[in-house]
């Protein structure tokens, strides 16, 4: 497990969220257990459990006693909503900062985005 982006438990939570957002982990399907995560990422099981518990607290996962953790129905929509609201902060702001540094105007930026759409 790399240490590139913050506490490990948050990285674990973010990876499971990603899997839910991109559809590789369906709603009502079983999430990996803390032991599986621990073995896969070579991290302490308590850290893996902390990541899972955060997702339970956020309502993304829920516990079925004695069975494991499952993806809540509506979790994907909830995550998408949150990520959209974070989009401006996480992506637009750094983009604008760099553009400003280089003297690229907002108009030029808009042209770039249009061009990128056309070329796609």
């Amino acid at each position, binding site marked *: *497990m790399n*240490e*590139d*982006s*913050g*506490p*490990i*438990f948050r990285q674990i939570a973010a990876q499971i969220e990603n899997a839910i957002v991109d559809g590789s982990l369906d709603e009502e399907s079983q999430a990996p257990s*803390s*032991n599986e995560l*621990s*073995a896969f*990422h*070579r*991290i*302490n*099981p*308590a*850290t893996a459990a*902390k990541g899972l518990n955060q997702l339970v607290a956020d309502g993304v996962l829920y516990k079925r006693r004695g069975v494991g953790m499952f993806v809540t129905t509506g979790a994907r929509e909830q995550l998408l909503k949150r990520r959209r609201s974070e989009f401006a*902060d996480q992506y637009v*702001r*750094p983009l604008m*900062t760099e553009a400003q540094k280089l003297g690229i105007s907002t108009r030029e930026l808009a042209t770039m985005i249009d061009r990128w759409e056309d070329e796609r």
Partner: protein
Amino acid sequence: MNAIPDAAATVTDVTMRYREHTALDGVTTSFATDGITGLLGRNGAGKTTLMQLLTGHRVPTRGRVQVLGADPYENDAVLQRICFVKEGQRYPDHFRVRDALSAAATLFPSWDEELARSLVADFELPARRQVNKLSRGMVSAVGITIGLASRAPVTLFDEPYLGLDAVARQLFYDRLIADYAENPRTIVLSTHLIEEISGLLEHVLLIDAGRVLLDSDAEDLRASAMTVTGRADRVAALGREHEMLSTETLAGSSRAVVRLSRPLDDGDLEARGLTGEPTPLQQLVITLSRHTAAAPAPDRAPDPRSADFEEVTR
């Protein structure tokens, strides 16, 4: 530092002196039940001495050591629940690998024979060969096999990886984490290969020149420091609010390891024209060890022999 209720082991104001040399100086700490603690520090910091005290191999000059609720020294009830995998463990001359393992099997009540067998197979240990004729790495693998298969409630590994190649070390980490997940217990692991094991640790105890430098939850620690890069004056300005542990400057740009007095997010940093990334545990340990070496405590005279001392006492 803080007393943990139901700790597996506690060390209270422990000082250990050998003739003139002070190996541990007023150390107070505890080891939570069912956790993996990384015992870190430079050679001669006192790591091995601390492990020897926890395993009843020595009696402290001053202070109190409690393991599983009692003083471990000459206490069989406690000692059979402790497994200490020593660096450079010696075995009786005639002992073959299988003899070392069967001796351990009789010693530890929670011994798991099946686990021992699978580790022997994984490490490709020759069961009929004399332990003293094995390579350094193979001897380490015998120690690791005993340490894991003992399933002892308190298991200490003192640099257990000597002579092991990267593949065998990975095998050790993988088997440790898998077995620990199924059978939680109190594990103390001293190592210099910090980067390799940083993800495994729940707790970090860093000692330096016989004193506790850092005693922290591993994740809290990760969040408590950051490596910040940017224009030298802007990085320096950060030093007014946070403790700068180290700063390097080149061509008007600085990179600093910062101990955060409050969390900084990307927005905060961006507003200051800086970028930040988490400081890897190994870098943080190096920085902290150097930081205190550069500013010694007033009553701590550096001992020129301390770096070699662990070698002498063994």
